[in-house]
């Protein structure tokens, strides 16, 4: 059923393109159209980032403090090599594939700054915009995957940040968990018309690009090329998560629960879509889950809403990747802007806390079933070597086969080490 949005088969569509190309010169916009292998690519390296927007209380999820005044209401349960929250039982059952790093110490406790720092490995700096890590992977791996027609960095309900000096063609393609891509449909317009439009557009754009007005005009053209690739690609099927059978959707989203059925688990749907995208060759997918800025009523919210939702989704992804033989190639990373205060506030909430908290990472051949690092008995400081986001991303680089010696160059010619020169965490790379 390989149909383009306009209802033509791709081959037919391209033939149309070719025919009209003969009548109109300068079809530079369309020169990317070439036949692609139809097969699903397996065993390609990829990274799925689970982004916990708002800052998750990792002391209630991955690093419980039973017996401490800061411990809160939850008990730990056994997971491979360590213990995690009692409200994460499904995840505990697949924890042999995952690991928690318990000694993150990241300084930035403001949402904007924390989001930037965790995504890029760099603290905000007025003279340069650092690329978010998804853009780094898009730049390193996406550019080598010639068969990939959809964007090499997709963000599903995420807070992806800017591609910075790597340019707009490595920007995140942002979609919601329903996978409906707005305006991707040419509405049945025939290829001759589209071609005609694009060739005229090419003339106007080239004129402006040649007018010494910086990089932005060229970036505009590059993004249009990507958008056209996408419009005419059957890889767009990867976004259609509803094509999965009900059982698979339930695997990620759960079947019931206190929320009155979790078929509306957007995070689960997002992770399922992420798996489809990775199968299609997308090297980096970010899936966001919000609702973590828990200044008040933290335990009820976690127990009734956030943790059941997340537990089903993470378990769904990890077990599905395992069943498909993909887990050794796909790194999963779980993080937010920061953790939350060990001290419980007067509103039974926890505030922003960056001094000692946890990140989860696994898959991609990394050593699972363990906790790396530790906090003190009240969770207030790191008791072992503290880690920075650059170390997490360097670990991901290692798993993705991107050399950690890679250096990018900022627009101003300044060398920028990948992952801010972080070091892969030894316990994880084994």
């Amino acid at each position, binding site marked *: 059923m390989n149909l383009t949005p306009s209802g033509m088969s791709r081959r037919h569509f391209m033939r149309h393109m070719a025919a009209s190309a003969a009548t109109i010169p300068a079809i530079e916009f369309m020169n990317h159209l070439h036949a692609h292998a139809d097969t699903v690519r397996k065993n390609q390296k990829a990274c799925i980032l689970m982004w916990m927007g708002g800052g998750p209380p990792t002391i209630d999820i991955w690093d419980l403090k039973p017996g401490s005044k800061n411990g809160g209401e939850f008990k730990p349960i056994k997971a491979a090599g360590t213990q995690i929250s009692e409200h994460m039982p499904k995840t505990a059952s697949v924890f042999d594939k995952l690991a928690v790093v318990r000694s993150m110490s990241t300084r930035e406790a403001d949402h904007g700054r924390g*989001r930037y720092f965790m995504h890029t490995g760099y603290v905000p700096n*007025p003279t340069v915009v650092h690329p978010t890590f998804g853009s780094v992977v898009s730049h390193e791996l996406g550019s080598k995957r010639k068969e990939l027609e959809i964007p090499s960095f997709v963000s599903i309900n995420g807070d992806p940040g800017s591609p910075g*000096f790597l340019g707009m063609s490595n920007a995140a393609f942002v979609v919601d968990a329903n996978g409906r891509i*707005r305006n991707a449909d040419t509405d049945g317009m025939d290829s001759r018309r589209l071609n*005609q439009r694009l060739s005229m557009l090419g003339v106007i754009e080239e004129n*402006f690009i040649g007018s010494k007005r910086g990089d932005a005009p060229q970036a*505009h053209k590059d993004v249009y090329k*990507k958008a*056209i690739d996408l419009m005419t690609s059957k890889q767009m099927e990867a976004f259609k998560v509803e094509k999965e059978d009900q059982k698979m959707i339930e695997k990620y989203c759960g079947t019931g629960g206190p929320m009155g059925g979790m078929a509306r688990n957007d995070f689960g749907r997002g992770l399922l879509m992420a798996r489809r995208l990775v199968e299609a060759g997308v090297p980096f997918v970010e899936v966001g889950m919000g609702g973590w800025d828990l200044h008040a009523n933290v335990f009820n919210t976690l127990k009734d809403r956030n943790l059941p939702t997340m537990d089903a989704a993470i378990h769904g992804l990890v077990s599905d990747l395992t069943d498909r033989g993909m887990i050794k190639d796909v790194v999963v990373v779980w993080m937010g802007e920061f953790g939350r205060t060990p001290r419980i506030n007067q509103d039974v909430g926890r505030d922003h806390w960056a001094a000692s908290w946890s990140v989860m990472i696994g898959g991609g051949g990394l050593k699972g079933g363990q906790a790396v690092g530790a906090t003190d008995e009240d969770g207030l400081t790191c008791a072992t070597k503290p880690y920075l986001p650059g170390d997490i991303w360097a670990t991901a680089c290692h798993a993705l086969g991107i050399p950690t010696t890679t250096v990018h160059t900022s627009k*101003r010619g300044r060398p920028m080490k990948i992952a801010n020169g972080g070091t892969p965490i030894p316990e994880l790379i084994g």
Partner: protein
Amino acid sequence: MSDLKWTSLRSVRLVAASIAMAVSASFVVSADDETKESKPAAKAEAKTDGDSKTETKPSSKKRREDFTTGSSDVLLTFINEQIRQGWTDNEVEPSELASDGEWIRRVYLDIVGHVPPVEDVDKFLADKDKAKRSKVIDKLLDDPAYVRHWTTVWTNLTIGQQTPMRVSRKGMQKFFREAFTKNRPWNEIVIDIVSAEGHFEENGAVNYLLAQMQMPDDGVQATAKTTRLFMGMQVQCTQCHNHPFNDWQQRQFWEFNTFFRQLRKEEHQKYDMKTGRNEFSYAELKRREGVEQFVLYEKRNGTQEAAESKYFGQPVDVMKKDDTGYDINRRAELAKMMTEGEKPMVAMAMVNRMWSQFFGYGFTKPVDDIGPHNPSSHPELMDRLTVEFVKSRYDVKQLIRWICNSEAYNLTSQATKVNEEKDNPSSGTTSLFSHVYLKSMSAEQLYDSLIVATNAHKSGRSSWEQTEQKRQQWMQQFVIAFGTDEGDESTTFNGSIPQALMMMNGELVKDAISAQKGSYLNTILSEAPQDKDRVRKLYLAALSRSPNNKEIQAAQAMLKSNSDKLAAYQDMFWALLNSNEFIFIH
């Protein structure tokens, strides 16, 4: 077109003919406005004198230095000198003056938020008045679209693109609309917003604070946002610890916060016959009585400290009663102090923000982080503009006049080899304003520009509020809300693929290129009989310039190969509206 234009028709014909075999004589359009249209002042004079061979063209430097928009404001000399000093110090030559076509498009987008209508471009290009630029600036400042544009800008800055829960966008817009219509002094606007109390539609100013009260946080977000937005100071980090890079201490944050401790939101409900339930009716911002003088906060080492009401170290008695015997409105006390003196942060923050609105970069990067830790690119200029802005009684229109009449704002956005490298703030250099930096249109500027470029504004179909509602609906497709206590949000209208898809296939552009009765395409197809005029008008509508030779050739080829001419015009207009040149303010 002006007489001026056609004096050079003969040579244009020759050039065109020699370049383009395919271009028939009937299709000659005067070449590229970028090079041929009237350049300001000196060049225009040279031309109107006829083809005098003896006259030597003044150097571009002299032409630039002699240039004036026609404004005689004395402060302009100071502004220009300061900017020139930066060029000299950094050994950078500025670019040439912007052509009239380039400039008028820019100034319309910057002041009234949309591209200029074709007839305004034509009139401006033909106008030989040396003071025409300053006159356009004045005219635009009196245009109703000025009010609309700045209402949009400030509504987005104060409550975000996506309206938070229990906040009235309508109310906030109404407040700004009235303020900008009357050109109310900026200090008064800030005082009204910071001290606001009452019903969210009767006193729209309250919506700013209501938007910062999405979570019960003892006014922390209101404190952080007020200092950042209105005073240009980022202190949100000092909530938890002393700021490593600026002078603010954790204590100061909480001293500031004491002024916001009276904030109280009341949400009122009304029985709804249809649903049979009580539904939200309106929100009200009220004053909490009997609030303590001190705020307790936790230091990093876990000990508790108390902060009392102080404004930059100056103690404030917040325990007083007002005339009616109630506790005084602490925020009113704060607002008064924020706007006192000859160089308050409120004025400096506004100067810096307005400069960045027009130039793409302020004197500091980011624009809302001013202080010794973050040096300004032009400290003396920023200072002087601040002082003058205060002296002008915080006259926002006057501030815009100073900016738009300055030499720097009248330069082209085309860089030179040297200033492209040395003055490129997007890659991290200090801003020298030696050429005008490209800005992307905001989604609202795009929406309004498409309406102007396609004549939809002329039909007079809908009221301000209807149009506003439609635009707001359309805007929602781009907003990504992060759902944090700061109400941060992002947009996919950022030059990425979703924006490109919307431009290529979305309803808005589809409507814009439809040839229905009353549409722009329909009008020019019926009113302009010749293809050359039609093509030229399409270019003017979208890009405020005529097509160049290459573009004329392409247009002609397209018209030739389509039996359906309308389709060719639609596709041409589509290409213009989708181009980089259209979406950038340059």
